[in-house]
């Protein structure tokens, strides 16, 4: 994954953050107006989220992040909010695919070791996350090769534009 470390301050959420919490169905009429949709990012999980998040922040959450709907708008609005990476204990499969397809890294680690506001440095290639606030070093799973290649291109559409097909 280009070997680039990702550094940032963390915002933290809990377990089971569903796509309905990330971008609720009641805003379905805004899905063709992404800047308006993005104003409501994670509103039902944390009404202050959109106001708090800063460009370059890292989103930290618990188990089964992104469960539910296949709406790719979920990683889209998270990305539009300025988040650069997502760290979770586990991730639902459709969300995982969608996030990678949008060029958003999602890494699995023990997020109990990260508090809201901690600064972290993610080294995806090494499979290591350093909590620079506490000094803790966490291991994170690596992203599988094909998905890593898609991520390297910034998402699935750019990947397909470049390669014209899936390259195994």
């Amino acid at each position, binding site marked *: 994954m280009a070997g680039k470390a990702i550094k940032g301050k963390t915002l933290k959420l809990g377990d089971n953050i569903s796509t309905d919490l990330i971008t609720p169905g009641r805003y379905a*009429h805004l899905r063709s107006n992404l800047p308006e949709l993005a104003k409501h990012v994670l509103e039902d999980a944390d009404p202050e989220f959109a106001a708090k998040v800063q460009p370059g922040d890292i989103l930290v959450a618990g188990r089964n992040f992104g469960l539910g709907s296949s709406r790719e708008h979920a990683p889209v609005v998270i990305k539009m909010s300025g988040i650069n990476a997502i760290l979770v204990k586990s991730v639902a499969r459709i969300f995982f695919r969608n996030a990678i397809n949008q060029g958003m890294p999602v890494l699995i680690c023990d997020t109990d070791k990260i508090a809201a506001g901690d600064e972290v440095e993610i080294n995806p290639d090494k499979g290591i996350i350093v909590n620079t606030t506490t000094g803790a070093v966490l291991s994170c799973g690596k992203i599988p090769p094909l998905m890593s290649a898609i991520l390297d291109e910034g998402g699935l559409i750019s990947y397909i534009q470049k390669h014209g097909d899936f390259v195994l």
Partner: protein
Amino acid sequence: MSNKGQTLAEKILNFKSPGVSAGDIAIADIDLAFVQDTTGPLTMRQFNNSGFQYVANPEKTIIFLDHAAPSPNRQLSNDHLFLRQFAREKGIALSEVGNGVCHQLVAENFACPGDVIVGSDSHTVTAGALGAFATGMGSSDIAVAMALGKTWLRVPESFLISLKGTFPRGVYAKDLILHLIGLLGADGATYKALEFNGEALTDITMSQRLTIANMAVEAGAKVGLFPSDEVTRQFLAAQGRADHFRPLVPDADATYERTIAMDLSQLMPTVSLPHTVDNTCAVHEIKGTKVQQAFIGTCTNGRLDDLEIAAGILEGKKTHLSTRLLIAPASRRVLKEAISKGYIPTLLEAGAIILPPGCAACLGLHQGILGDGEACISTANRNFRGRMGNPEGLVYLASPATVAASALRGEITDPREVL
């Protein structure tokens, strides 16, 4: 090809990518790719952004207008216009408002045993009831699947759900799958295939299989698969698609990561409490909880047998004064048959509101949004906070019988008390 016994998932993906087994990446030709109206516009924009001009297999690509049906506002109406124009330009089929929920229409008209089906809707897994490897993806994946006619899939490991016994009175497929999700947890089968088999299968109808496969994703699963057997053959024949039948069973020596045995005769009417699907208990444990809305419909439980059960409970009776009962048949065909069999007149007499075939109240964009503090008991598949249009609403999930019984009493009711 390896000599190792194959699960259903491995068997189907081997048709497309010979030699693969669990853990491998398969590149699979797509038998059907579809979108619905809340994920379709982004899919088509991604398709256009990618620079592709043509859909690889227009005859295997469908746009369904079902989530906002009919549209409640200008923006979603404009999304429909965009999708209709895209369909015309690319020569692909579009299922209009009022025809029904995509997954029901895919089961009735398109899904075949052994197919690989991808849709930009998480409940695409429903078609696993017919022995199709059917899974939900996002807009970029479907855009690329439409353009290339193929996709990549990690071949999943499988959990065998071995079923025996028969359902007791008042217990249905919905209770089985809710119980199983409670057992596994909402992420208990993440990335896995749930494969249903066992001696009980011959008694589990296609409609019940669709209910079960539909909710596989609520345990995190990639697919929920049934073998293709006599039940499948008869269902396809009844839809005028007898020639689409092929038998499909896993090998006797297939490898399963986990086996869960379930005895249908031991199950009870089950309910999911707010706000996660795996938060299950027996209906009698929460009986008496007041509900202001009851909803029967969706890709999970909006079929003819579901309406028949509800009509049977409500015949000659009235719904409770404090509870509105919404009915949304899953397809136009279901609605027509429910009218001709007298279920719709019975439900109307009982006080029900009949909504057009489509997703209706399920996902909170129209037709039954909850007020602050209101509770709905629903036959749908999700009860996440905010799901029915209001984060201050409460959603309970149950079988059509439990929902009908609860509509009758105005509070959550064990259907065995009214059957």
